[in-house]
């Protein structure tokens, strides 16, 4: 069902854990399936993401997308991190089954939530970042057409 890359990230999740006194922490839940993801960011004074960790309560796809998302944002600056969309994460994982597309949104939203938290804590405004919802509803996979 899952690609080899997904399975690899599921079996060996990268950057799993917590960061104490993180610069930004974001927790988002997927209203569609009830799964939850938390992202910790450690951002230096130049705005570079020095470290990132995640925790996920969710399916195989949720775990793998969190893991891949952390790899994609690590070492990037904030604007670059904002470009890490769920699509980018999915592509990096060689795709997800259609019913699992919504899972990848958790990763994107969790990054955004952590960045928002960072911005609030530091009293700055990040260009192009909207306040994340705590519940994600979009990302409906291609349902069987309702004939």
């Amino acid at each position, binding site marked *: 069902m899952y690609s080899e890359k997904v399975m690899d990230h599921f079996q060996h999740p990268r950057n799993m854990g917590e960061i104490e006194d993180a610069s930004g922490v974001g927790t988002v839940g997927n209203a569609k399936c*009830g799964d939850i993801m938390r992202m910790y960011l450690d951002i230096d004074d130049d705005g570079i993401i020095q470290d990132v960790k995640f*925790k*996920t*309560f*969710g399916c195989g796809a949720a775990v793998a997308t969190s893991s891949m998302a952390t790899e994609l944002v690590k070492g990037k600056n904030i604007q670059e991190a904002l470009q890490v969309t769920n699509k980018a994460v999915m592509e990096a994982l060689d795709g997800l089954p259609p019913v699992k597309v919504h899972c990848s949104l958790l990763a994107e939203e969790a990054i955004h939530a952590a960045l928002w938290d960072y911005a609030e804590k530091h009293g700055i405004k990040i260009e192009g970042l909207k306040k994340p919802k705590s519940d994600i509803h979009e990302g409906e996979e291609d349902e069987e057409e309702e004939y």
Partner: protein
Amino acid sequence: MKKVIYLDNAATTRTAPEVVDAMLPYFTEYYGNASTIYELGGSSKKAMNEARETIAGILGAQENEIYFTAGGSESDNWALKATAEAYRAKGNHIITSKIEHHAVLHTCEYLEKNGFEVTYVDVDENGKIKLGELEKAIRPTTILISVMFANNEIGTIQPIREIGEIAHKHGILFHTDAVQAFGQLPINVDEYHIDMLSASGHKLNGPKGIGFLYIRKGVKIRSFIHGGAQERKRRAGTENIPGIVGFGVAAKRAAETMQERTAKEIALRDHLIDRVLKEVPYTRLNGDRTDRLPNNANFSFQFIEGESMLIMLDMEGICGSSGSACTSGSLDPSHVLLAIGLPHEIAHGSLRLTLSEETTLEDIDFVVDTIKGIVGRLRDMSPLYEDFVKKQAAK
């Protein structure tokens, strides 16, 4: 190849080698159509009637009350839709439970869209139907009560005899989905006041794609699949002779070994349940502790999610299943686990393990040890567990 420990026998079972052996001649040798008059067809017909007799015997039914179908889902659809149609003049109300299989629930929803009214009776925290509520739900227009014999997820066995008595006291037909129970529990259609009963071959080491509907003589439902005159004109379609023969052999086998086999399964199941509840913290058993299918164990592990657990178990060669939203097509967690009162996030972390006659004590011990490791790893990864631990520490 890695050893596989298959603990998903409620989903489907391994077809027993002797069942396959019994089927084989009917593919290439006695392949005749059972409705023909030449000898080649005669062999098919004879084999089919033997299977019918076997199954009728097990249920205390008559041969001509057993109608072969393509499986449990067709049997359920047939029983409900055709009864609804046949008895519409009498009334348009049906009673069922909240924890039925989708083959019953979705059929009921279909009937609701077509002018029928359906009451979905509650179950208690162990998954037992509330008999008082059931009886109160009866109206003058009630034509059918359909309650499953035993639940496929949590294994709870329903008080079928009592339900049958209530139904018949009120002159209402009683259908039971016995897909999980047939071959696992003793069933007698007269003692239990059953008018219709669904079963499926592949749940008892028989082949897939074959089932039956028991219809008590006198119940006036007609065809669901129209066409040829097979199955006493009630179910059209060239008979699946190898499937029927295989189902017959599987049923016979299941009935003959039932006592010994289920005693063994119960002992292993109880060992599994005891060890898991003792050794894995924040865990609950779902379903009734004693009135449960001999081979069923169903746990909820707090703070973790079922699909991840299943994939990790699979990597260790263990096949199980989950009521987690993430594993089903629907994204909603199991309606059964919600009906027994579990909150969403706990329903999410559920694991069903269903044993077979081939399961050993070593298997079970290996499974428990593996579960302990996996649950630990997943909790380390879980933001919910992190919150919980921090809250505990703050106290």
